[in-house]
């Protein structure tokens, strides 16, 4: 009795899925008809400047160097506009050339030539808004729907909600590239109060993505299986006694580790990928990079991994050392543009794009005013940033949302983090209001008490 009770409480029941178990095919027990099966989230950590990439503002060029017009400030609340700085910051026009791309003639700058080429496949959002203007809280906001830590990330919610078709790999995998990991580290892919096995599993940023995959010398697969079985049996006994959900997570982790030993060598062995694929992504063999991670993301999705998140640092172009809007921004674009576009193309030609939602974006946008440091950069901005979505039930080739003529704030179709989450869950077949988890006397959900489904984004 007590045992069954604990099993239920601690999520050790078979599959442990909220909506359906592992054994059931995808699609049963979902709230709405799913349009996507997988998500690849390209997280541009640091906050890419929409004004250099997607949000073309001729008026901003015109007013370059001038103080911000009062009319843009009256009655509005901007993160950086406190009186302390008023009158000092000047509008900053971009030096980047923009051109129209795709059938609809959407504006994309010269920094993203490869992205521009697939404009017709992308839905570009220029009105992405969040609540908080500093990195860790804003990253948590985009990942968990709350700027405070202690909430599960979207990958955890999704795998908790609908499981993952992949039995041999974690349902939520995190890949990283760039000079350092994203600020906040594992908080970004935490499961928080959801059972621990729904947390993201970070593969190593460079070198072997997973260390210690090979059995020790003298231990064959059968012996390893026997060891994992014995560990599991003993852990289960301890679990029955202590009722600690962490043990349930550990049992699942050992099972997953064993299966990863079987499946991961094949996953990370890129020898089967053709030179033309490497060329398409701009990746080099045996050199870890965002591009390699994009190929790996595709391979993960092919193997049924539900949620893949790629972090690339550092997009925090304030104008300080290694963070300028010239060479440093160019480098970030060079490191990601070709591969992100190639990922879309590659998924499409393999027939995976219709089931895979690809999202590109960072935790916030950047200000229309310049920020004078060593060079002039831009500061964090919560009211308008750019992201793009593609595949997986997204209506392709549209622009969603519009900002005012200086790019301060949305004038139409604001896309708040909560709205993005509601829409993402909807595409996966989940009603964001119904995917909940009881914790400390309250039902929590990814969108808290917010979130609107953005029907205009749906195909």
């Amino acid at each position, binding site marked *: 009795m007590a045992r069954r009770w604990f099993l239920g409480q601690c999520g050790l029941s078979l599959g442990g899925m909220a909506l359906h178990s592992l054994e059931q095919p995808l699609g049963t027990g979902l709230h709405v008809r799913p349009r996507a099966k997988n998500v690849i989230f390209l997280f541009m950590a640091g906050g890419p400047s929409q004004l250099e990439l997607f949000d073309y503002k001729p008026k901003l060029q015109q007013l370059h160097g001038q103080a911000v017009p009062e009319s843009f400030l009256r009655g509005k609340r901007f993160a950086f506009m406190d009186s302390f700085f008023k009158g000092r910051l000047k509008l900053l026009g971009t030096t980047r050339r923009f051109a129209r791309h795709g059938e609809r003639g959407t504006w994309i700058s010269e920094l993203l030539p490869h992205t521009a080429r697939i404009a017709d496949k992308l839905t570009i959002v220029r009105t992405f808004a969040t609540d908080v203007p500093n990195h860790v809280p804003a990253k948590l906001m985009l990942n968990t729907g709350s700027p405070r830590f202690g909430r599960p990330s979207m990958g955890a919610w999704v795998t908790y909600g609908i499981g993952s078709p992949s039995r041999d790999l974690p349902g939520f995998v995190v890949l990283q590239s760039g000079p350092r990991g994203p600020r906040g580290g594992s908080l970004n892919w935490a499961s928080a109060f959801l059972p621990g096995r729904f947390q993201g599993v970070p593969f190593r940023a460079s070198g072997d993505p997973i260390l210690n995959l090979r059995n020790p010398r003298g231990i064959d697969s059968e012996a390893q299986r026997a060891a994992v079985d014995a*560990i599991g049996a003993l852990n289960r006994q301890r679990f029955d006694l202590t009722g600690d959900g962490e043990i349930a997570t550990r049992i699942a982790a050992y099972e997953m580790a*064993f299966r990863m030993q079987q499946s991961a060598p094949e996953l990370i062995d890129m020898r089967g990928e053709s030179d033309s694929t490497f060329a398409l992504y701009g990746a080099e063999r045996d050199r870890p990079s965002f591009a390699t991670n994009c190929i790996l993301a595709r391979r993960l999705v092919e193997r049924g991994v539900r949620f893949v998140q790629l972090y690339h640092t550092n997009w925090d172009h304030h104008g300080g050392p290694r963070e300028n809007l010239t060479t440093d921004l160019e480098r970030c674009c060079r490191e990601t543009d070709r591969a992100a576009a190639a990922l879309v193309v590659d998924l499409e030609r393999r027939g995976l794009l219709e089931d895979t939602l690809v999202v590109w974006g960072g935790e916030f946008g950047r200000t229309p005013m310049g920020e004078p440091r060593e060079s002039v950069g831009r500061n964090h901005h919560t009211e308008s940033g750019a992201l793009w979505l593609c595949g997986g039930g997204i209506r392709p080739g549209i622009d969603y949302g519009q900002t005012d003529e200086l790019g301060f704030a949305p004038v139409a179709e604001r896309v708040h983090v909560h709205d993005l989450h509601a829409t993402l869950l909807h595409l996966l077949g989940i009603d964001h209001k119904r995917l909940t988890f009881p914790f400390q006397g309250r039902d929590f959900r990814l969108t808290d008490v917010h979130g609107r489904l953005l029907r205009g984004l749906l195909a």
Partner: protein
Amino acid sequence: MAGRRDSAALLADSRGKRDRVRRGRHKVDALESATGYGDWTMRALGTLMLLAAALSAQGAGADTPHWAFKKPRRPEVPRLGSTWVRNPIDAFVLARLDREGLRPAPPADRHTLLRRVHLDLTGLLPTPAEVEAFVRDTRPDAYERVVDSLLASPHYGERQARHWLDAARYADSNGYSVDSARSIWPYRDWVIRAYNEDLPFDRFTTEQMAGDLLPDATDATRTATGFHRNTMRNEEGGVDPEEFRIEAVKDRVSTVATVWLGLSLGCAQCHDHKYDPLLQADFYGLYAFLNNDDEPELLLGPPARRRALSDWQEREKQLKQRVQRAKKSADADVLGRAQAELRSHRQRRPRVDRTLVLAARAEPRVSHLHIKGDFTRKGRVVRPSTPAALHPLHSAAAVPTRLDLARWLVSPDNPLTSRVTVNRLWQRCFGRGLVATENDFGTRGERPTHPALLDWLATEFVANGWRRKPIHRLIVTSATYRQSSYQRIELVERDPTNRLLARQTRLRLDAEVIRDAALCAAGVLDPRIGGPGVFPPQADGVMQLGQMARSWKPSAGGNRFRRGLYTFFWRATPHPALRVFDAPSAVECCTRRRCSNTPLQALTLLNGPAFVELAQHLAKQLFSSGERDDARIDCGFARCVGRPPSLDERRVVHGLLDARPTADSPSRWLPVARVLLNLDEFITRE
């Protein structure tokens, strides 16, 4: 005054006034965003602003001041007349449980309790003999005797030092991309000694903050200033050294605020921008204390040894010049001889221990306020000062020094330091502090679950002369600490994170202690204390990942089996078994480790070379422990989890042994050893 009113709102306890607080928070966010300087600087700045705003509002007599900014007053210990209560801690805990209508858990069994207290105090496992002796010891104070011997053990300092080293961001390399090695392990050893000697926390503080300025300064107190030298150093070509020096000084300000005041990390992002000019001055007031130092290396050891080193250096210089001359002469023989001599000279370098320290400059630097945090944009000149809104700074000098700042931190008038320190001690014993946000005692932090207990401990701590061992002893001998950690049905709903302490909490061991436990179980631990970092085996290919590929030659002999805290920590390429079990990155101050639970940890324990090797040693131990399988199984459980196996557990192990019948040998026991080292219970203190 509008400003006054706003700060009062900030100050007000957040309950019922959340909207106002939120407004304040937005403003901090705004400032941080606007200046965009490193998150940490702004966080520190923000919290100091919060603090000052709060305290100035206090002066204005507005709402009740935030609890943490009022000096703790010694509360009455509740009188309950319960036999469960062993010491005042229990009275406070039980009073709360009574209010909630909950009962404490039964005490943990003796096996569990012994393993728990060993791991918490020394980070080592009790030996099977120690377990046996304790279980049989029927004296009423048997447990207290164990506690006293553990507090007196030299390994106590090792375990406790590691917590402090997290906060000090200790590592053995310089960080950033070049990440070359540094020698600062004498500082680590100083911390170990300080814990072992129970150096009072006020003295512990002043030596680290200003050991070079003490009237009775010694090499040991100078070594202690290494606390501030654990900042990273950028050796990339083309960087402005002044920029990174200033960045390090700002990191020191932020670390001081986090470590002593519990105020700088986390999400404490409330402030009132109307106070900006004043509060920025406060931040740079602290900065001005820490901006007046040279950052030399201190040579340690007897003078003769140091002299030998300087002679050696002189000779090296000469030999280098000779090589240069020989190169010009173009005589291959002469050059070859000169080079050979230089090579052999370099192998004879006298070993002198060295460590990084602070040394106050004779002429203090002129410190400026940095406009928007940008060091290239100097504002007005600032003098060393503590936040005006906090308790006053006393200084005999015309210009206050780091020593004055140190004394200010541990002044009895400081409302924060004693609470913050006992709270962290509590956190180690229960997995969460009485204030759960151990680095945020500001208005955005969580309120204490047991405010009176926190204040009682804080005042007890100071009354005991800032000694930590007596407080540690009080905690671990309390009935609260001795409870069973088993989950209870009625608590799952009511108190899933165990805030009310109606039970103990199972805690996964820290990365280093997982290694220590495996070393103990395998019977190979080299118990030597201190010395330069060591190199236990690790997976191939880790060291090639840094910008500068370096080799990792595994240590031989005893050094291969030293405790986890001695593992050489390269910031750019840390030992993967440390990071996978959530050891901090040593990039910034860490006051609480996260605790993940992943398949990668399973792979580390199952397949990682260091653990495989230890499993082999454990297998030998099991094999040689007796003739019969059952005796060996008993030995395995005793060594690893400090208790006998249940019948079911024994059956599982027999099943494993029988799966592949092989000749009786140590290798027959390897599967059993691996399983034991991989048990959840093995890496958990229950």
